[in-house]
């Protein structure tokens, strides 16, 4: 609960900063500031397994973390030039609005309200998620519609909270939400038996079951999804150059998978004569110049974290403890939704 005391002052400071800076659209300022500072400031979650979590030594890992590292590699040439700023769901938008972070990669769902009214832009989708339910296996519930009158723990200020209200209303279930201000408090209450179910995005549910449950096999995740949750990094409005850099770094990782360029073979593939590969890796046309970056920006990003598929499998997929299926997050030409516009 430590952050409770820091949240309000941080928000107020953020607001004051926001008011002072409002109206000042400054193209390219973010990139200049990052180069001068020598570090990308990246807002991440305060611990969601597979997306962003710090280990005992303070080393961050996860899908969102790798996106930050890829951006740092593309911009500064080195993936470790990132300052990770853990943020609660209440703090996250104010932190980005005020300039406390340059990019927010914190399993945040892309919605119309957030896109249109917060002064922020979603750059790309890095994970197509959906909201589900985690509940004790002993309740023998197999379908979310059986949760009539149930008490469901969740975190405040999330899209999950709103979706739960919609779902309960649509199916007349009279679900009672028990809402906590942190993710941790919510799942602790669930594991203590306060609620009959816990709801959030399925990827996070999977992480909670594997890492936090006393006995993971005592809990099941229902197959039903009650929402679409496209997650991805956000930037502030008003700096189109920076927006393009973050967005195209994500696309570059997806394009690399499509072209079969991995962390291991990137250097080798660079020497080949495939024009699409040459364009992406910076031995052909200079795409970096258009973004205000070095010619080999994408090559550096790919060398740092690997292509999108590698990032996925390492953090949340087959090589991780979460073992999430690739599902919608496969490339477009393999039946998924991941589609990078042409890099040319």
């Amino acid at each position: 609960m430590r952050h409770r005391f820091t949240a309000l002052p941080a928000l107020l400071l953020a607001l004051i900063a926001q008011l002072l800076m409002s109206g000042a659209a400054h193209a390219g300022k973010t990139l200049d500031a990052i180069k001068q500072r020598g570090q990308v400031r990246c807002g991440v979650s305060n611990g969601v397994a597979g997306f962003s979590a710090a280990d005992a030594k303070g080393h961050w890992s996860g899908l969102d973390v790798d996106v930050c590292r890829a951006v740092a590699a593309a911009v500064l040439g080195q993936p470790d030039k990132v300052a990770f700023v853990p943020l609660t769901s209440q703090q996250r938008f104010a932190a980005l609005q005020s300039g406390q972070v340059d990019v927010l990669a914190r399993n945040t769902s892309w919605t119309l309200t957030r896109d249109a009214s917060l002064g922020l832009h979603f750059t790309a989708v890095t994970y197509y998620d959906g909201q589900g339910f985690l509940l004790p296996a002993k309740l023998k519930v197999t379908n979310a519609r059986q949760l009539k009158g149930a008490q469901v723990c969740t975190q405040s200020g999330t899209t999950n909270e709103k979706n739960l209200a919609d779902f309960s209303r649509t199916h007349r279930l009279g679900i009672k939400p028990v809402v906590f201000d942190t993710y941790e408090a919510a799942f602790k209450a669930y594991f203590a038996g306060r609620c009959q179910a816990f709801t959030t995005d399925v990827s996070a549910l999977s992480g909670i079951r594997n890492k936090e449950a006393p006995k993971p096999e005592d809990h099941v995740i229902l197959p039903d999804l009650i929402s679409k949750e496209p997650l991805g990094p956000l930037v502030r409005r008003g700096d189109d150059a920076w927006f393009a850099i973050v967005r195209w770094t994500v696309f570059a990782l997806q394009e690399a998978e499509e072209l079969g360029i991995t962390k291991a073979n990137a250097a080798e593939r660079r020497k080949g004569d495939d024009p699409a590969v040459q364009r992406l890796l910076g031995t052909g046309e200079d795409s970096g110049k258009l973004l205000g970056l070095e010619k080999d920006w994408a090559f550096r990003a790919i060398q740092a974290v690997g292509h999108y598929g590698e990032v996925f499998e390492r953090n949340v997929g087959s090589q991780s403890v979460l073992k999430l299926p690739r599902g919608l997050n496969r490339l477009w030409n393999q039946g998924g939704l991941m589609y990078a516009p042409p890099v040319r």
Partner: protein
Amino acid sequence: MLDFLLQPAGFEIGETGLLVFEAAQPLWKALLVGLGNTLRVSLPALLAATLLGLLLALGRRGPSLPLRRLSGFVVEAVRNVPLLVQLLMWYFVVIEWLPDSGAAWQLADGLWLSKGGLAFPWPTAWTAETDRLGAGLWQWPEQGTFNVMGGAAVTPEYLAVAWSLTLYTAAFLAEVIRGGLEAVPASLAEAASTLGATRLQALWRVVLPQAWRTIVPAATNQYVNLIKNSSLAVAVGYPDLVSVGNTALNQSGRTLECLLVMALCYLALSGLASGLMNAFNRRHAGGTA
């Protein structure tokens, strides 16, 4: 600037007291429910804390040594541990030790206690269900599949917040009251007893009325603190004003406006509490505050 308060809230509130709320209703209504929940937990805690504080103060000055020691221990222990720590401790004690919602304890006819909360019968006429049920004046809770259904209930969050606030404030009030009692010269109580008053009569008729003027201003501070401290409820998921306000802030992105609304509500509540106490002070304690 505050027009966003007219938009639908989009989220449900887990407990709403006597108010009825649905996600489709506007944000201002959600904030009102939050304010209602703040009052619903603050007022009973305020009364209970006053009573408990008085008992602790009397216990600490009383003739019985074990009682003096016990009261002293409670006051010191409670005063010196942060409220947030106590709140979390009580909350996790409550939800760890109570039975699952699917297997509630029946304390008495119609009184069920579980991790889902304390359920009790409630007059039908006062709830939203009235027109559908029609029959019977009282709604009786019964064990359902997941939890106890029907009647009215207070959640473990409510119980934890109400109890922590009561105990915490009582410890401070006990010291305030003790200070007030000690400020009254002992000779007055002695004089009362020579006139034939019992200890209790001397306390109620002679000592306490004179102690008020010392007690009331300091007690006002404690009451105002209690109301503001209820905002810690957000830590255990009780939907008070701050909890609902935080959600509204996050869902609407209107940070400054929501914080302003919350601040104004607390200002009004604290102002009201101080005003009432000052009026009491003028009337009964002859104070000039």
